[in-house]
Every structure is written in structure tokens, then in C-alpha cells.
């Protein structure tokens, strides 16, 4: 819109990578990935509406290697976004904003998402 030179904050490349910024970026990335899952969810429900044949067709895609890989990816994206989302909600109340808490909760989210992903994957019997 405007070509006038205005002060800009320095961009990503000047910063040293830190856990907090990596998790912030991952929160957005997993959120976008989960948003794409809306297409799969709609496809699944419409397949059920379209009858047994369409439903089994969807099932065969879901059980293919690529299907399983996508479901595993969505499962991890979900556990991460869920746990890190709780971290964000706590921040909204003004708590855990100090450096120590932000890092402790960050490591907890990473560990928790990996443990939950593994636990749910095996509990579901894959």
C-alpha cells in the first residue's frame, strides 16, 4: 500500500533458534495441518452417506501406507496442538510467562505430545 520507509522489526533470520520460537512456529504449522484435515473429515462422513462401497473405498485409502502416514502425522499434530494450546490458554491468564516456566512447559509439551502420540497409536491397535 505505502512505499514510505517505516521502521520494521528484525525478521527471523537474525535470531538464534530457541525452543520457544520453534514451538510457536510448530503451533501454527500443526494448526494449519489440522485445518487441512477438515477435507479428510468431510470426505470420510460423505463416504458413509454414499453407501457401503464408498465407505470401504475410504477405509482402504485410510489403511494404505500413505493413509496411515497421514493419520500418524495428524495424530501428532493434534496432541501437540492440544497440549501447546493449553499452554497458550494458561499464558492468556497471565501465568507461566516468565522464562523458566515458558521453557519448562515447552519441554513438557514436546515430551507429552510424543508420549501421547505413541500411547494413542498403540492403544488404537495399529
Amino acid at each position, binding site marked *: 500500500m*505505502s512505499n514510505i520507509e517505516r521502521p520494521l522489526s528484525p525478521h527471523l533470520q537474525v535470531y538464534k533458534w530457541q525452543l520457544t520460537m520453534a514451538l510457536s512456529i510448530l503451533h501454527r504449522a500443526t494448526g494449519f495441518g489440522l485445518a487441512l484435515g477438515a477435507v479428510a473429515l468431510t470426505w470420510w462422513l460423505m463416504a*458413509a452417506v454414499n453407501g457401503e462401497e464408498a465407505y470401504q473405498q475410504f477405509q482402504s485409502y485410510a489403511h494404505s501406507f500413505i493413509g496411515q502416514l497421514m493419520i500418524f502425522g495428524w495424530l501428532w499434530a493434534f496432541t501437540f496442538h492440544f497440549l501447546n494450546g493449553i499452554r497458550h490458554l494458561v499464558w492468556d491468564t497471565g501465568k507461566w510467562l516468565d522464562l523458566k516456566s515458558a521453557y519448562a512447559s515447552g519441554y513438557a509439551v514436546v515430551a507429552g505430545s510424543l508420549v501421547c502420540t505413541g500411547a494413542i497409536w498403540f492403544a488404537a491397535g495399529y
Partner: protein
Amino acid sequence: MAHENEKTIRSALGRARGMGSAKDGTHHFWMQRVTAMALLPLSLFFLWHLDSIAESDYTAFLKWMAHPTVAIAAILFVVASFYHALLGVQVIIEDYVHAEGLKIACLLLNKFSFFGLGFACIFAICYINFAL
């Protein structure tokens, strides 16, 4: 009034228009949190029913989906999650797409996509309950 040589980060066009923000940012922020809160129990509910979701037997799946508690929870989940996703993707578009025309096209596509997919899901859940 803004002075000629006054230091400001507001753009010249923004200053000339003098309208400030669109004043719907707070509602966007708030609804993102409201839907997030709703999704905590709703997603745990479906995580708990993961074996039914992964069900490969067609009639068993329909029977599960036609249970009133499941059907209502499913509709609530679709509304909360698609609304949450719509708000999130909107922020991503506003952050990264700067060309005005393309940005408006992306924002419209985002809204149409989630409304279209969302109503298809709700229709499917109702259809499974009442027509199958």
C-alpha cells in the same frame, strides 16, 4: 492531529482515512479462545471413541454415529473445530499474503471452504441419523 514531521508507524493512507482499525480483532481473538476451550472436552470425547471411529464395519459405524450423544457431540465438534480452523487460517493469510486482491481472494476462499465443508459434515451426520 498528526503533524507533518511527527514520528508515527501509521501509514500515510491509514492516517488520511483516519478510521483506525476495523474493531473486530478482539472478537476474533476471543472466539479463537472460546472454540479452543470447547474443543478440549469435545476432542477428548472422540479420542475416547477412537475404536468406533476406526471401525471398518459399515453398519457398526452407522449404528455408533446414529447414537444421539455421538451425533450431537459430532455436530458440536464440527462447528467448534471448523470455526477455530477458519479463524486460524485467516490469521495465517493476513500475515503472509500482502497483495490486496490475492489476500481478499484467499480470505474468501478460506471462509467458503470451511462453511462448505462444515455444512457438508453436518448434513452427513444428520443424514446418517435420519435417512440411513
